[in-house]
């Protein structure tokens, strides 16, 4: 699996996380090219269906990145995201997708270094998990 090159999609909100990635770019903080961004105005726009669609299309890992709780440009969009994905994460295991393949996290516009770390770490994690194959019910994780 050494040369496994995972596909990782990150849904990022326009105001914080997209800007954080832009800042990482400005500072030339490189991160694996596996991670590709899709911009939404707010993390609150991210429907769990988007994440499922990403897996279906061939993504091996999916991230949703938004403003830190309390900092959402639209007041509380990210709180809705947080609630929505807390449930979703539980269901993933039921669907046979390891929890490590999905990550909801917060990256502020100034956190370029953090963006680099989150992107790099996610790539590492997914590399270890290998390419996604829906294995059915993951008993050890469906607590």
């Amino acid at each position: 699996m050494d040369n496994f090159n995972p596909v990782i999609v990150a849904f990022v909100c326009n105001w914080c996380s997209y800007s954080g990635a832009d800042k990482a770019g400005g500072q030339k903080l490189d991160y694996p090219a596996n991670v590709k961004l899709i911009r939404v105005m707010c993390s609150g726009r991210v429907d769990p269906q988007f994440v499922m669609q990403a897996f279906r299309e061939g993504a091996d890992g999916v991230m949703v990145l938004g403003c830190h709780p309390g900092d959402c440009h639209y007041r509380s969009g990210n709180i809705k995201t947080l609630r929505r994905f807390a449930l979703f994460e539980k269901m993933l295991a039921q669907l046979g997708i390891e929890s490590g393949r999905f990550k909801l996290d917060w990256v502020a516009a100034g956190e370029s270094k953090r963006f680099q770390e989150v992107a790099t770490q996610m790539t590492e994690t997914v590399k270890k998990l290998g390419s996604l194959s829906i294995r059915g019910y993951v008993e050890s994780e469906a607590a």
Partner: protein
Amino acid sequence: MNQKKIALFLCRCGANIAGAVDLDTVAARFKDKSGIALIATHDLLCSPAGKKFVEETIAGKKPDGIVIAACSPKMHEKTFRDVAGRAGMNLAQVTMANIREQGAWVTPDKNEATQKAIALISAALGRGALHENLEARSMECNTDVVVIGGGVAGIEAALMAANAGRKVTIIEKDISLGGAVIKTEEVGPSMECAPCLLAPRLAAVRDNPNIRVVSNAEVTDVLGFFGNFTVRVKKAARYVKDSCIGCEACFEVCPVSAPNAFHLGLGAKKAIYTQFPGSVPAAAVINRAICKHFTDGSCDACVAACPFGAIDFNDGDESLEFTAGAVIVATGFANVNPSSIPALGYGTLENVVTMPEFERMASSNGPLSGEIKLKNGTAPASIAVVHCAASLSEHGAAYCSGVCCMTAVKAGELARKKIPGVTVVNIHDRLVFEGPAAQEFYREQQSKGTIFCKTSDLAHVAVTRAGDKLAVSAPGTAPVTVDMVVLSTGMGPSPGSNVMADILDADCDAAGFFKPDHAILHPTGSTIDGIYAAGSCASPCDVPTAITRAQAAAGDALAKLVPGRKIELEIMTGAIDEDKCAGCRLCIAVCPYKAITYDAQKNKSIVNEIICRGCGTCAATCPGGAAGAKHFTNAQIYAELGGVIHG
């Protein structure tokens, strides 16, 4: 519809992109792809020459859309939307592929960077092919302003808007303007006379033809939205006509009086009264609850005494309605009541007063005409001031108000002015002074003789009776025996603020103050567009901050509501497909802006596109796929997803 033809522009960005991404390989990859009108590579698309090139290419080749593979949309999306607009293309048909910040600059391996650029461009092409035109939208607006609350902040906001030519209505629940500040004697740290500071502002309000003051009145309803509010008001009967000039001739003949809120209950006013001479409005008011004309019909002495024939026993309550583009809430604060901490003795021990009551005693317009007195009528020889009374406590205000230390230190200055030789001891824990002037005032009070004692445990300060004096014990410091104890209380939300917030549909924070639209970027905006929170209704503050907030609120409203100019509206709003909406209203529950309403007759939710800011949370929540987000539709996002994954 035929497949869209999209022009793809690749920017070398000097060597920034060209050095890290093989643009020839990129161009070759898309050369034969269907839906591509043309591919052009340029040294620097954002340069004047580059923009001209894009504009001419659009005008000449007439593609249906363009993809600019260059830098971040945050950098130049607007630039190229403008360029496209000049060439007659709708702004929505411009899509950026961020191959610099997300590619060239972060991917050292040229082959990887090239492949990533291809994926990002592919995503942009896929999404761009599905873009629907977006129309810039604007709305006519009402530029008048309603100010709720006539304290210093409300007055300031009203004057500012009125001086800019706007019609302003101030709704005040008391019988005249002035709020909390008019009840104080001096404003620290400069110790300027509060009524003197306010008097010219009050006169300016009175004389401004653009301002209407509606006092003795309450807001009952606020309908509408930014640029178009209707404010309903109930104005209580005054029983005195506007022709009253406040000459006070009737006060002398009025036979009854009662404790008055203007004096914080420390003194009485007649049944016909004004708050203070020179109030705005000047007219007196009759307290119907005690006036003998109303209680037993036995008196109409004021009628004969009035030189202006202003008494009107037949006056009744009135319902009024005002329209405005913006509403500025300046409903102030309430002093935290320290009786919730029994050990402090407030309400149970004589001569234990709050700092606002102490200031009221010292006030020239106060119940004791400016004399600080004990209950027995003599002046206190010693005073203890307890800081943070009922603050930083779950039984009072859980927070530090940030301004009461300044006021508590002022007690010594006020006392020494009125009572020569008085001893003043301030018992405190942490002292909070904002800025050099307040800090300097504190040092000055130390040198003038105020004794400062630091306690190690504020929660265990206790006041007890000691003969005809009061003993104050505080852990970590020697007990003191004094004639009077002044409790320095914090600022809490005014009692009606949650009701007001409900009426406005705005939110309050956990402490009960109006929540800002954005704590850092838009602190004077409430959570509802076009409704502002000025002064201390937003959070505890001193007078200069209250004024600054009022100016900020009025300034923001003035800048956004300009006569003759329409309000620019968000173009990427949410949208609800009526045919699919089942009326479940989940979208209403999640909308951070209350931009969605429910039409009960149709059983449908409806987006108000004037209020919506386009976050898309409703779209992600809707279980029936009825709610969508313009320019971020599911289909567009899926197309983008396909691009980034498959290249």
